C-alpha cells in the first residue's frame, strides 16, 4: 500500500474535478480525501493502486486545464480513514482560474429531449461538463454559494444527484431542475407578464408570427427575429447595413453557407459554440441578414435555445446582442424594457442573475475575431517574472489582461471604451479579474494614445494604488501579443498612436519587446482630411491619398456640392486638421470610396468589409508596387500609386470586383515585400503578423504565401484576435519583459 499527497494545479474549478477524482478513487480502491483550494486540488490518497490512480487524476476531466501535478509523501501525523470523501472547498492561492461558460453538452441535451428524464423540457439543465461558469460567478473558489445559483437551493432529487458519486452531476454547482432551479417568464416590452404555461413555446410562436423578442441568455440579452423581419430590426436598431448574426439548427447550415471544414464543424458544436463567419452559398443572397459575402452563424448553445428551436417553424433566428454598437451587452430585464422597448415587442427572461456579462465569441477561418463566451477568461501560462501587471487595453474592441505568478489572464470582450457605460464596464471587469486572480497590479500598462479613455483610467488607477505606469505603443503591443522573440513584426491595422505622434497602422516593426522595435518599414504617409471625419466618410480619405483634380471631379459626379469640395481641397492644401497616417485600414477605406462601394461608414470596419466582399468575386490583375526609401532608412510602400494605377484601369473599363481584388492583392504583396526587405536587411528570418486587417482572408493569405515563398516563417497567436482584442495582452507581455529586464 502506498500513500501520498497529490496536488493538481490549473483550471480545476467548475470542471467537475472533485467528482472526477472521487470516481477514480472508487475505481482504484483508493482511500482518502479531495479538497478544492480554488486554484489547485489537493488529494490525500492511500491504496495499493496509488500509481495508477495518480496517472488517472493527472490527466483531469474533459474541461480541466492541468498546469502541474506534484506528489509528496504524507506527513507522519496524517490519518487516512476508510473510503474516499470530498471535503468542502477552502480558500487558497488563486493561480488557477474559473473556466469560461460551456455550451450544453450532448448528454444534457439528451436529458432535455427525453420525456422520461426529470430534466425533460428544462431550459437550464447542466452538468459538470457544461453550463454557465464565468457569467455566474461572484468569487472563487467556485461553489454554488458564491454563484448566481446561491438563491436556488437544490430540491431533494437534485441534492441526491449532487451527492451521488455515480451521477454525471456529482458536485455540479449549477445543478437545477424545473422544480428548484431558475425559471423563465415571458413579458411584454413594458414588462407585463404574458399568460402562458410554456414561455418558450409561446415565444417561438411570437417569433414565427414575425415579432421581435429579446431573449435573456447566458451572458446577456439577444434580440431575436426571423429572417423576414431582419430588415425591420436593422431599421429599429439604427444599423441599416451591418450584418446580423444568426442561430440555426445544424441541418440548416447547408442551405445558407458553404460547408465548414471538419475543424470548423468541431468548433461550431464544441464547448465554445461561437459565431462562425462562413461564406454564403450564394454571395449575394440573404442580403437582409448580411450585405457581405459571408454570414455569422451559430448553433443553439443552451437548453433554452434548443427548446426554442424545438418549437420554431422557421429555419433560423437573427440573434444579435442587445446593445448600442460598442456599448456593453444588456443583462438586466428592467434595462432591456427601458432601452430596447422600442425594438423588442416581447421579452423572454429568466431569473438567474448574470453576474458577469459575456458576448458571443466570433471566429473566422479558425482565427478568433472576438474573444468572449466559451473562450474567455483566457488563461495562458507564461513566465513574466514576479511582479503583477494589468493591461487596460486600447480604446476600440478592448478587453483587459492581468498577469500574476506565471499566468496571463484575459477578460472577455468589453467593447469600445469611449462612452460612460463601457468605461464603467472596463473598470468592473478589471476589478473582477483582480478579485478572481487575487492580483494587486504593481505595473499598469496602457496605450500610448494620450486621449484614450483607457489611458486616463490607467492613470487614475495608478494614482489610487501607487502602481507604476508603462505606456506601450499600439503596434508594438500587437506584435508582442504574438511573441516575445526577435521578429519582423507586421502590424496592419486601423489606427494607433505612433512614437512620433503621428497615426500608425501599416507598420513593419523589427525587434522584440525587450530591446524595443525599430520601424523598418511602413505604408506611405497620407493625410486624413478632417481627422476622424475621414474615417466616417471614406471619400475624404480617398482625396487624402489622391489629392488631385481627378478625385475632385469623381466626387463632384457623385453629388458633392461645390462648397464641400472646395473646403476639402483647402483642408488638404493647408494641412488643416489633416493628421498624417500610415494606416492600412485607411487605404482600404479609400479603395472602397474609389470603387464607390461604401461612401459612408455606418459601422466599424464597414468600408474594408464591403471591399473584401467585392474582391471575393473578382480576380486580381498583376500590379507592380513601388517601394521608396523613407526617413531613417525605412522602406515605404507607395499606396497612393496602387490606387492611382487602379483608378486608371477603372477608367479603361476594369470591373469593380476585379479592381477590389487587384488593390487588396497589390497591397498585401507590397506589405509582404516590406517585411521581406526588413528580414533581409536585419538578418531576422522570422515574421509575426497581427492587426485587424489580417482578418481579411485574401490579404492575410497573400502575405503568408509571399513570406513562405521567401522562406520566412510567420508567427500568429491563434489564441488571440488579430484585432485589438490582443492589445491588453501585448501590453502586459511588454511590461512584463521590461520589468524582468529591470527597465521598469
Amino acid at each position, binding site marked *: 500500500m502506498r500513500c501520498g499527497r497529490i496536488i493538481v494545479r490549473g483550471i480545476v474549478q467548475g470542471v467537475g474535478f472533485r467528482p472526477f477524482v472521487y470516481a477514480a478513487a472508487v475505481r482504484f480502491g483508493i482511500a482518502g480525501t479531495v479538497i478544492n483550494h480554488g486554484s489547485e486540488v489537493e488529494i490525500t490518497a492511500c491504496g495499493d493502486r496509488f500509481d495508477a490512480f495518480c496517472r488517472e487524476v493527472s490527466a483531469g476531466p474533459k474541461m480541466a486545464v492541468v498546469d502541474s501535478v506534484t506528489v509528496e509523501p504524507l506527513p507522519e501525523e496524517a490519518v487516512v480513514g476508510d473510503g474516499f470523501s470530498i471535503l468542502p472547498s477552502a480558500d487558497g492561492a488563486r493561480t488557477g482560474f474559473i473556466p469560461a461558460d460551456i455550451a450544453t453538452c450532448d448528454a444534457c441535451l439528451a436529458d432535455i429531449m427525453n420525456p422520461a428524464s426529470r430534466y425533460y423540457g428544462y431550459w437550464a439543465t447542466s452538468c459538470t461538463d457544461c453550463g454557465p461558469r464565468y457569467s455566474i460567478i461572484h468569487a472563487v473558489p467556485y461553489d454554488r454559494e458564491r454563484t448566481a445559483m446561491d438563491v436556488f437551493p437544490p430540491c431533494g432529487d437534485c441534492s441526491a444527484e449532487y451527492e451521488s458519486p455515480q451521477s454525471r452531476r456529482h458536485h455540479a454547482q449549477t445543478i437545477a431542475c424545473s422544480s428548484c432551479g431558475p425559471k423563465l417568464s415571458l413579458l411584454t416590452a413594458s414588462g407585463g407578464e404574458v399568460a402562458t404555461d410554456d414561455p418558450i413555446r409561446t415565444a417561438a410562436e411570437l417569433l414565427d408570427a414575425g415579432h421581435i423578442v429579446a431573449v435573456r441568455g447566458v451572458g446577456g440579452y439577444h434580440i431575436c427575429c426571423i429572417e423576414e423581419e431582419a430588415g425591420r430590426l436593422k431599421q429599429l436598431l439604427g444599423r441599416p447595413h451591418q450584418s446580423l448574426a444568426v442561430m440555426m439548427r445544424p441541418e440548416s447550415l447547408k442551405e445558407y453557407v458553404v460547408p465548414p471544414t471538419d475543424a470548423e464543424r468541431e468548433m461550431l458544436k464544441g464547448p465554445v459554440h461561437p459565431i462562425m463567419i462562413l461564406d454564403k452559398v450564394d454571395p449575394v443572397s440573404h442580403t437582409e441578414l448580411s450585405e457581405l459575402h459571408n454570414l455569422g452563424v451559430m448553433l443553439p448553445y443552451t437548453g433554452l435555445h434548443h427548446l426554442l428551436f424545438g418549437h420554431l417553424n422557421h429555419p433560423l433566428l437573427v440573434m444579435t446582442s442587445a446593445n448600442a454598437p460598442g456599448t456593453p451587452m444588456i443583462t438586466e430585464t428592467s434595462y432591456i424594457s427601458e*432601452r430596447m422597448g422600442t425594438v423588442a415587442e416581447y421579452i423572454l427572461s429568466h431569473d438567474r442573475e448574470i453576474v458577469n456579462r459575456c458576448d458571443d465569441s466570433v471566429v473566422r477561418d479558425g482565427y478568433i475575431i472576438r474573444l468572449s463566451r466559451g473562450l474567455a477568461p483566457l488563461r495562458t501560462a507564461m513566465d513574466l517574472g514576479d511582479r503583477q501587471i494589468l493591461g487596460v487595453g486600447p480604446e476600440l474592441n478592448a478587453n483587459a489582461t492581468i498577469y500574476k505568478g506565471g499566468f496571463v489572464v484575459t477578460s472577455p470582450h468589453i467593447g469600445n471604451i469611449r*462612452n460612460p457605460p463601457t468605461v464603467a464596464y472596463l473598470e468592473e471587469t478589471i476589478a473582477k479579474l483582480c478579485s478572481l486572480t487575487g492580483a494587486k497590479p504593481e505595473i499598469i500598462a496602457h496605450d500610448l*494614445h*494620450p486621449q484614450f479613455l483607457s489611458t486616463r483610467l490607467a492613470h487614475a488607477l495608478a494614482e489610487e494604488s501607487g502602481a507604476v505606469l508603462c505606456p506601450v505603443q499600439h503596434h508594438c503591443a500587437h506584435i508582442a501579443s504574438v511573441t516575445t522573440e526577435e521578429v519582423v513584426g507586421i502590424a496592419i491595422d486601423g*489606427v494607433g498612436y505612433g512614437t512620433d505622434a503621428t497615426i500608425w497602422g501599416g507598420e513593419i516593426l523589427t525587434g522584440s519587446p525587450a530591446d524595443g522595435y525599430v520601424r523598418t518599414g511602413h505604408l506611405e504617409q497620407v493625410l486624413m482630411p478632417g*481627422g*476622424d*471625419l475621414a474615417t466616417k466618410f471614406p471619400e475624404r480619405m480617398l482625396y487624402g491619398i489622391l489629392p488631385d483634380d481627378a478625385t475632385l471631379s469623381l466626387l463632384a459626379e457623385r453629388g458633392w456640392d461645390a*462648397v464641400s469640395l472646395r*473646403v476639402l481641397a483647402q483642408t488638404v492644401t493647408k494641412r488643416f486638421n489633416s493628421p498624417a497616417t500610415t494606416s492600412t485600414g485607411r487605404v482600404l477605406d479609400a479603395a472602397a470610396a474609389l470603387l464607390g462601394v461604401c461612401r459612408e461608414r455606418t459601422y466599424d470596419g464597414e468600408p474594408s468589409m464591403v471591399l473584401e466582399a467585392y474582391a471575393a468575386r473578382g480576380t486580381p490583375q498583376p500590379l507592380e508596387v513601388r517601394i521608396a526609401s523613407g526617413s531613417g532608412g525605412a522602406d515605404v510602400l507607395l499606396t497612393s500609386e496602387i490606387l492611382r494605377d487602379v483608378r486608371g484601369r477603372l477608367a479603361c473599363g476594369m470591373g469593380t470586383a476585379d479592381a477590389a481584388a487587384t488593390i487588396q492583392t497589390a497591397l498585401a504583396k507590397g506589405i509582404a515585400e516590406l517585411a521581406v526587405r526588413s528580414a533581409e536587411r536585419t538578418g531576422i528570418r522570422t515574421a509575426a503578423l497581427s492587426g485587424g486587417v489580417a482578418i481579411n482572408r485574401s490579404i492575410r493569405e497573400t502575405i503568408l504565401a509571399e513570406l513562405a515563398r521567401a522562406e520566412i516563417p510567420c508567427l500568429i497567436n491563434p489564441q488571440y484576435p488579430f484585432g485589438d482584442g490582443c492589445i491588453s495582452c501585448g501590453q502586459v507581455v511588454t511590461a512584463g519583459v521590461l520589468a524582468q529586464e529591470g527597465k521598469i
Partner: protein
Amino acid sequence: MKKDTEVNMMHGAGGEVMGELLVTLTAFKHNNAGGIGLESLDDGSTFEIGGKTIVLTTDSHVVKPIFFPGGDIGRVAVSGTINDLSVMGARPVALTCAMVIEEGFPIADLEKIVASMDEALGEAGAAIITGDTKVVEKGSLDGIVINTAGVGVVDEDSYLIRDKALAPGDKIIVSGTLGDHGLAIVAHREGFDLGDQLKSDVAPLYTMIAGAVRAAPKGAVHAMKDPTRGGFAACINEMARKAGVKVVVDQESVPIRESVASAGGLLGIDPLQVANEGKCVMGIAAEAADAVLAALRSHPLGKNAAVIGEVVEGSGVVMRTRIGGERFIEPPMGDPVPRVC
C-alpha cells in the same frame, strides 16, 4: 507622457497640457489678498475694501487675424475682461489697457482697434482709465498684443459668484449658441470659403448677466463661467471638476447655429471645443432656472439661451445623444488626434 522641458504651442491651447504649464506659472506663495486668490484659478480674484468686495482680473489678447467677421482684437480685449468680471457677479468699473505693438503696425488699424474698444466699453458702462504702450522690433511679435486688466465691484443687489459651486440638482444654462467665435476665426484665418457667413459672438455681457442674476433670488446662480479658450467642453469640465459633480448635457437642447454646425462638419471641428467670446455658462438652482432663462432671453445677447443639462452626483461631463446613447464631453487637448480604428 513625458513632461515637456520647453514651452510649446500646445501649452497655450487651453487644454489639459496648458494645465501642466499653469502649475509652474502659479507657484506664487504670495497669492491671496484676503479673498479669492490666484490659487482658485477662477475668472477673477477678490479683495475687500470698505466692506465691499472688489473683483480684479487681467487678460492678454493675441488674435489672428486681428480683424475678423463680427469683431476685432480690441473688442475681444475689452469684452474678455468685462466678461470675467461679470461672471463673478461684479459690475465692471474701470479697465487698464497695455499694448505691445510690432514695428510697422498700421496706425489706421490702431485707430480702428481703439474705436472698437471704446464701443464695447460703452455697451458695458465701463471705462479704460489708464494704459501703457511698448513698441518692439519687427519680427519679435506678430502685430499686436493687448492686455487689459479690470476692476469690478459686487453691488448690494448682486453677490459673488464662483465657478466651482455647482450642486447636484442644478440646471445648466448657456446664454446662447456655442462655437461661433472659434469657427469664425478658424474659417477667416485659414481662408476657408464655407459659403455661409460665420460671425464671432464677441460682446461684453455685463448688462445681460446683471439682469439674469437679479431675476432670481439671491444666491440662486450657483456657478458661472465664460467658455472662452477650450470652448464649452473645457469650461464645463472645469466647473464639474472643481465642484466634484457630474454634468449631464442633453445634445438636442445645445444651441448651435446651423452655419457653425455645418462648418464644424466640413472641417472636422467640434463647435463645443472652440472659443466663445460672448457667452456664459451658468449653474442655477432648479427652481430659479425659468426666471433666469426668461431674463437672459429678454436681452438681445441672450435670445438663444437654453437649459442644456443638469448636475448630478458623480464626476465628468456626459452628453446624452439623440439616439439615446451617452458619450463623454472631453476637454480638448490642443490638437485633436485621430482615434477611430
